[in-house]
């Protein structure tokens, strides 16, 4: 009898635990909850007499046997077969070259190319090589298939030529994705070859701390794979980066200058058109600077030659967002007794918002509020809009809107009652909900100052499944309800904000609440409107052409997103301009080291396990064990033991009680 994983047999020593527990006196059954144990020290428990431990001997034996079986099961027993020698294979290597923007620094790119070529030149004649690059997304230059199909004498030349043709990009560094893609390429190549071949991923990168590694967090790595890190290092550690910051005045942009912790200089210069600002930023710190006038391109100088890759910042002229709004309510919009009056003022013309109020659902309003009963045709249109990912706010102003609520929610018509009390306040507000997250801070979370004079009561049981009550009235009735519909959602308020219903429209929370409800469709207040290289740009339908920063025009295909590949100002048909910048994480240049990768489970620098001969023997053992499957029988016996143990355990308790009762 042999064992596939003999180390697990050490688990047999756990039988000491039941033996120890059987030697101990049973803990008292009385349990007391006490405010604190900080003034109490645990009392010692007396062991029971040696004679009495024999009473539960069968139970103890069963438990020990179960643990022994468990240990045996994990060590996977099998009957060893004959030994046959297998052929040793050669290594499979993926060369993964980082092409992110930070590789533009100094001589980094040339060093990286030289390392890659040296790596390929050292590959043995019967080894396999693939070459990939990783910026934001992985790209294959030479696959294992290309390598295999090429003439053996020209394989290295083909790979080196492919490397010569690439250049660093402007994207961020997603090393995690690159390593996963390389591992997948190795796994795909295994199908038609010997799976026991060792494999290696050679990462050639500056290994900056800003690299994204999320993808490797949950990856499982095969045992024969190792990752070799080849770090290229810049000669100068000076670097400073410029990025956009939120500004209260759109005409005076604010920029953030961040100096690298390893920098040796702290004096920089910010140039924007005719403006020049002198900036002193100590190493490892950030400073904010406000420009006196708008600018589309801002340049940071002073961090030395070869470090210019993150020294340009592009800003698009800030234009108020054009948003279509619709308020489906009864009465005139300028009647201050109606909710529409306040809705229009909350979304009035401002520096960040250029609203246009529409009356037809066909115009696909981004912000839709309903405060009256809908006819069947309107209901269908609103539901279609919600199913497609839209969001609408339903203000239940009267009990007759029950049918509309039921139809929009896609359930039965709920029964609505008019609340007949004096007034209500809000309670049980779910500040973890995204809509109300803005009010989480204790300074803003007091909603009790808002009186709700009237509201409609609905039984939560009448609402469709998935509905979530995010606020209640103090009568216990739902106040605000979120109902998911298809891809979108409907937010229902059981009381209006106009003076007849409540004081909500008079509260300072009213406008932030409306903006928060429509945060996906509404204007972004205070934020910076910018995009990063590699992210798809939000281009509206009907726009067919985009002007690139170089001045070239590019045709846009319908239904295909456009992702910029360099920073600059991209101009759309119709005059809109979009600023695209380098991803800020790309300026985090502190070397990552291998520890974070090891912590994420990446087999860094690990040689392929075992010699070929021992590896083959392990494989044969695995096959023998898989054919015999003794561990399954062990599971069956273990289950039977556990059933008997449970039965014995349950029998012993009443017997004891009976004995105690007889004695007493």
């Amino acid at each position: 009898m042999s064992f596939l994983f003999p180390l697990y047999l050490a688990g047999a020593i756990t039988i000491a635990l039941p033996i120890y527990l059987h030697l101990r006196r049973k803990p008292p059954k009385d349990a007391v909850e006490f405010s604190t144990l900080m003034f109490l020290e645990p009392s010692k428990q007396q062991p029971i007499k040696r004679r009495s431990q024999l009473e539960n001997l069968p139970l103890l034996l069963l438990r020990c046997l179960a643990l022994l079986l468990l240990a045996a099961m994990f060590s996977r027993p099998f009957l060893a077969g004959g030994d046959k020698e297998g052929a040793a294979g050669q290594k499979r290597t993926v060369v993964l070259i980082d092409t992110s923007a930070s590789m533009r620094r100094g001589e980094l790119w040339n060093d990286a190319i030289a390392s890659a070529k040296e790596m390929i030149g050292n590959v043995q004649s019967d080894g396999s090589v693939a070459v990939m690059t990783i910026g934001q997304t992985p790209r294959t230059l030479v696959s294992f298939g290309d390598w295999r199909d090429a003439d053996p004498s020209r394989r290295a030349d083909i790979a080196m030529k492919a490397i010569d043709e690439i250049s660093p990009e402007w994207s961020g560094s997603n090393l995690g994705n690159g390593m996963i893609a390389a591992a997948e390429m190795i796994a795909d190549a295994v199908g038609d070859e010997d799976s026991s071949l060792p494999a290696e991923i050679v990462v050639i990168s500056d290994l900056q701390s800003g690299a994204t590694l999320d993808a490797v967090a949950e990856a499982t790595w095969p045992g024969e794979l190792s990752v070799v890190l080849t770090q290229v290092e810049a000669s100068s550690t000076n670097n400073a980066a410029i990025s956009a910051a939120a500004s209260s005045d759109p005409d005076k942009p604010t920029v953030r200058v961040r100096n690298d912790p390893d920098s040796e200089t702290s004096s920089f210069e910010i140039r924007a058109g005719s403006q020049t600002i002198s900036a002193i930023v100590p190493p490892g710190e950030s400073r904010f600077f406000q420009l006196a006038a708008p600018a589309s391109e801002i340049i940071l100088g002073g961090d030395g030659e070869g470090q210019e890759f993150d020294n340009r910042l592009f800003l698009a002229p800030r234009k108020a967002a054009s948003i279509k709004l619709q308020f489906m309510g009864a009465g005139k919009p300028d009647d201050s007794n109606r909710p529409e009056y306040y809705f229009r003022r909350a979304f009035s013309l401002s520096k960040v918002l250029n609203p246009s109020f529409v009356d037809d659902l066909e115009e696909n309003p981004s912000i839709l509020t309903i405060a009256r009963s809908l006819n069947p045709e309107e209901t269908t249109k609103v539901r279609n809009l919600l199913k497609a990912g839209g969001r609408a706010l339903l203000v239940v102003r009267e009990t007759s809107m029950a049918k509309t609520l039921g139809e929009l929610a896609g359930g039965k018509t709920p029964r609505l009652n008019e609340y007949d009390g004096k007034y209500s306040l809000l309670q049980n507000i779910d500040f973890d909900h995204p809509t109300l997250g803005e009010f989480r801070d204790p300074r803003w979370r007091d909603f009790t100052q808002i009186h709700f004079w009237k509201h409609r009561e609905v039984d939560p049981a009448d609402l469709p499944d998935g509905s979530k009550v995010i606020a209640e009235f103090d009568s216990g009735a739902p106040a605000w309800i979120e109902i998911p519909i298809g891809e979108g959602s409907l937010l229902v308020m059981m009381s209006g904000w106009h003076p007849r219903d409540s004081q909500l429209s008079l509260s300072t929370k009213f406008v932030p609440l409306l903006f928060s409800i429509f945060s996906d469709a509404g204007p972004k207040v205070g934020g910076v409107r910018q995009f990063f290289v590699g992210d798809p740009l939000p281009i509206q339908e009907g726009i067919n052409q985009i002007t690139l920063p170089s001045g070239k025009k590019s045709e846009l295909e319908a239904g295909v997103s456009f992702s910029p590949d360099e920073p600059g100002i991209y101009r759309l048909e119709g005059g809109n301009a979009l600023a695209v910048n380098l991803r800020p994480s790309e300026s985090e240049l502190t070397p990552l080291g291998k520890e974070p990768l090891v912590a994420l489970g990446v087999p860094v620098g690990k040689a392929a396990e075992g010699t070929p001969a021992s590896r083959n023997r392990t494989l044969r053992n695995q096959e023998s064990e898989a054919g015999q499957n003794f561990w399954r029988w062990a599971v069956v016996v273990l289950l039977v033991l556990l059933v008997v143990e449970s039965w014995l355990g349950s029998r012993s308790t009443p017997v004891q009680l009976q004995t105690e009762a007889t004695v007493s």
Partner: protein
Amino acid sequence: MRIRSLELRSRVVVEGFWSGIHRSPYHGFSSEFSEYRQYARGDDVRHIDWRVYARSDRYYIKKYEDETNLRCQLLIDGSRSMKYGSNPEFNKHTYAATLAATFAYFLSQQGDAVGVTRFDDKVCDYLPARNRPGHLRRLMLALEAPAEGKTTDFGGPLERIAQMHDRRGMFVLLSDLLAPLETLSTRLGMLRAQGHEVVVFQILDPREIDFEFDKAAQFTDLESGEQHFIDPASARINYLKKIQRHLDAASALCQSAGIDYFLSPTDRPFNLALYDFLSTRARRAAGPARTGTNPNVRSAT
């Protein structure tokens, strides 16, 4: 409705208290007369005391101790240890909430602004001190919240509270103080340094003070969930020593910071606690706060 019962409880305590000592509740402490000052150009003529003018033929301005009303913030410990009660129907948190409701009702009756802050290891609920119609009801609603917090940590919440209050006021801390006292000392000192008055009511269950348990049992810490086997017969003497040391430390800490400290077991009548509170106010009104012997400290036994 529970809110009514809490309001009713506080009303019964306050009105019972006044009927017991035969004194009108409508004489506020915050409008205590301080001194006369001679009129100077620019002073508001409405404050001229015409009786003094009639007697002395001189214009005098009447000054008050504090021209604004008292702003009192009730700080309720909402940690899980406050859920402990030898009487399951009336635990420490219920006692603290009722006591807070009593103070709130009393102060709002005489026109002072009252607010409530509930905290555990962070500020959970915050209701600023106000005196408006309907505010008392909101206070009661906030006080109804159960003690579902985690561990007690005075550091973060008291620092946050200090940041949120720049106007001088009064803080009444209602807590079992069953936590390390080092941070409490610095944070209470910070509040005092900002000029706030601070009153501490340490609320303990009688069972926590005398540790009268009969049987050995598995004791579970309400905050950490830690379990120990405790035999009260052997553990009691040590426990009593340690809790007494802790109570003495809390008392000494408050004394050194010029803070009024009261130990309130949950079987202590509310009207006595209210009397403690008012005696503090009266003493504060009579003279400035001084560090030194604190006459309010009562023995735990």
